[in-house]
């Protein structure tokens, strides 16, 4: 189990809850403030207005008028709505709904919020106290307890909202965490299995295309590539071991034989020359492997320039013409004009050279090789080398470009079995492919190079 405080899902959920609380506070605090200030001062104003009006009544109609008015009003109003009391200068009640002048009222005019003993019980009251001419005292007040249920409802609502938010947040955190943990756990298990060496595992995909799915798909793509590379490496290691073993074994026996038999100098030197040739063969294999490794890294893409594939091919064809002529092979070249691609001219030349070299080795004396550079309907450049040689068996075609693969038909011909691999790697470096097709009879090997996307291919 991942510890709670380290789960990113929980961190996120707690963060969201805190954010929700902050938003709620940002909403409630101004409201609370408005309630307390605006409404409170509004109430004060109403009370003051009331007191003012009663004072005016007193001034106009005297004690009798006011007493009558207050009594009439007290009789009409809902109980407790307004506290009214008029007393004489000795605080003896003259009119109003209070029996006695409450104690605990500060002896000063103006608005006050106090706990006053109204009708025998202490009540939270907002009071306006006025002293009328002739020593009369007037008290106009409002029982604040009347508002308590409203305030309580507001507070309750707020607390309920906070609680709800908190609960939802926690529940969400738990759910998200469980869901996320389950999927992360799945990924972890798969990856552990892969780390233990079984590269065939793939991450589960839900087809929901959410973030984790996209991530899993990307990782699966990476795993495909790694698996391909690893199998390539192990194949290559085997093949290198095999292909190098032969010349090295020859070399070893040659040298050992020399040491044992100690032949005449002339023969010794002939053997030494042969040994050097053996070593050269090993070096050639290494050079081809290094070139392949260089191609696989894709580093050569940085040197890409606009290249006319037709011109490059024409030069290689010209380069091979005398060799073809010598073998009596009909060698033809045709192009549809300039075939511009972004690429490495030397590598393209080497790839075309390898294709022609292959064909030249395979075709019979008086055979035919035709080279064509053209543009496909989709704008891709196609460099094709077709011959009427033995071709490649259909079953071998997918493997033909693999490193060190040598078809049965090509066994016995010179070469190290890396020629097509290099062509394939060059095509891939240029974002294209090498296709091996039937030429009926013979082989049609063609590189298809896209014009623009030379950098997008891995």
């Amino acid at each position: 189990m991942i510890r709670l405080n380290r789960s990113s899902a929980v961190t996120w959920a707690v963060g969201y809850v805190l954010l929700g609380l902050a938003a709620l506070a940002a909403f409630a605090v101004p409201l609370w403030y408005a309630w307390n200030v605006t409404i409170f001062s509004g109430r004060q104003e109403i009370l003051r207005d009331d007191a003012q009006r009663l004072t005016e009544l007193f001034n106009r109609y005297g004690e009798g008028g006011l007493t009558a008015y207050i009594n009439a009003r007290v009789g009409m109003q809902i109980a407790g709505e307004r506290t009214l009391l008029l007393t004489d200068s000795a605080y003896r009640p003259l009119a109003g709904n209070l029996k006695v002048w409450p104690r605990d009222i500060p002896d000063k005019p103006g608005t006050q919020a106090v706990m006053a003993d109204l009708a025998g019980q202490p009540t939270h009251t907002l009071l306006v106290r006025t002293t009328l001419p002739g020593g009369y005292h007037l008290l106009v007040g409002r029982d604040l307890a009347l508002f308590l249920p409203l305030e309580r409802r507001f507070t309750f609502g707020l607390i309920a909202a906070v609680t709800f938010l908190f609960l939802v947040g926690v529940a969400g955190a738990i759910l998200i965490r469980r869901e996320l943990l389950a999927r992360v756990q799945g990924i972890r298990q798969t990856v552990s299995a892969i780390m233990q060496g079984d590269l065939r595992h793939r991450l589960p995909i839900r087809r929901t295309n959410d973030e984790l799915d996209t991530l899993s798909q990307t990782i699966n793509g990476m795993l495909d590539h790694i698996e391909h590379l690893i199998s390539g490496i192990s194949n290559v290691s085997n093949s290198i071991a095999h292909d190098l073993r032969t010349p090295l074994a020859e070399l070893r026996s040659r040298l050992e034989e020399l040491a044992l038999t100690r032949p005449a100098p002339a023969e010794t030197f002939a053997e030494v020359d042969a040994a050097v040739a053996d070593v050269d063969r090993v070096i050639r294999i290494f050079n081809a492997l290094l070139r392949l490794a260089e191609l696989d890294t894709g580093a050569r893409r940085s040197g890409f320039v606009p290249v006319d594939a037709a011109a490059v091919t024409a030069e290689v064809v010209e380069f091979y013409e005398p060799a073809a002529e010598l073998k009596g092979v009909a060698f033809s070249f045709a192009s549809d004009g300039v075939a511009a691609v972004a690429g490495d001219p030397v590598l393209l030349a080497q790839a075309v050279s390898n294709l022609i070299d292959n064909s030249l080795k395979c075709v019979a004396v008086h055979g035919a090789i035709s080279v064509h550079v053209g543009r496909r309907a989709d704008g891709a450049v196609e460099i094709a080398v077709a011959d009427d040689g033995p071709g490649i068996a259909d079953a071998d075609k997918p493997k033909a470009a693999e490193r060190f693969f040598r078809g049965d038909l090509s066994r016995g011909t010179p070469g190290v079995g890396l020629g097509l691999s290099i062509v394939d790697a060059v095509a891939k470096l240029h974002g294209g492919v090498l296709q091996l097709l039937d030429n009926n009879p013979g082989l049609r090997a063609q590189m298809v190079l896209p014009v623009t996307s030379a950098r997008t291919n891995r």
Partner: protein
Amino acid sequence: MKILVVEDNARVARFVTQGLREAGHTVDHADNGRDGMFTAASEPYDVIVMDRMLPGNIDGLAIIEALRKAGNRTPILILSALDAVDERIRGLKSGGDDYLTKPFAFGELLARVDALGRRSSGGDTDRALQVGDLRMDLLSRRVTRGARLITLQPREFKLLEYLMRHANQVVTRTMLLEAVWDYNFDPQTNVVDVHISKLRQKIELDSERPLVRTVRNAGYMMCEHDQA
């Protein structure tokens, strides 16, 4: 020629210095970058052969750059186990004149050292080249042997020009590939040999003395006098 070999591997150094001495050159050897730098700066040499990986993690390229900054113009052949094209380009950019990858055939090294040494003495401003009775006019691009006019394809002309410029020197197939075709890869078929034999058919009629000689284990040499 006087040649300085800067190479730390004792076996390779012995192989190279002995071979160069046998070919008639005077050879000095330095087995580390500091000595190499000091010797190269204090004595005039015709060619310097510089290994890239020197003791103490010194890159031979750094020494070359320092020498070039100090105004030393001696032709330098870089020896390196680094084969990548980028490395080759870096080597030539740093001020090296030629780049040879290890392992190499001695014939290849000797031919390249000769070519570099010759370049430092002769200029490229010739208007005509002549080997025996074979004459190449570089301006009118006319090739004649005695009174006979020889018609050549542009590439054949370039090939012959390279051979004539390096007359009496061995030129290897790789050198020809690089100089004439600009290819730095190794075609598996002996295409260069076929080109040479085709050129020979044009410049050496049956009645004429051969000019291009095949040097075993190395390449070709164009020379006036048939030394074989």
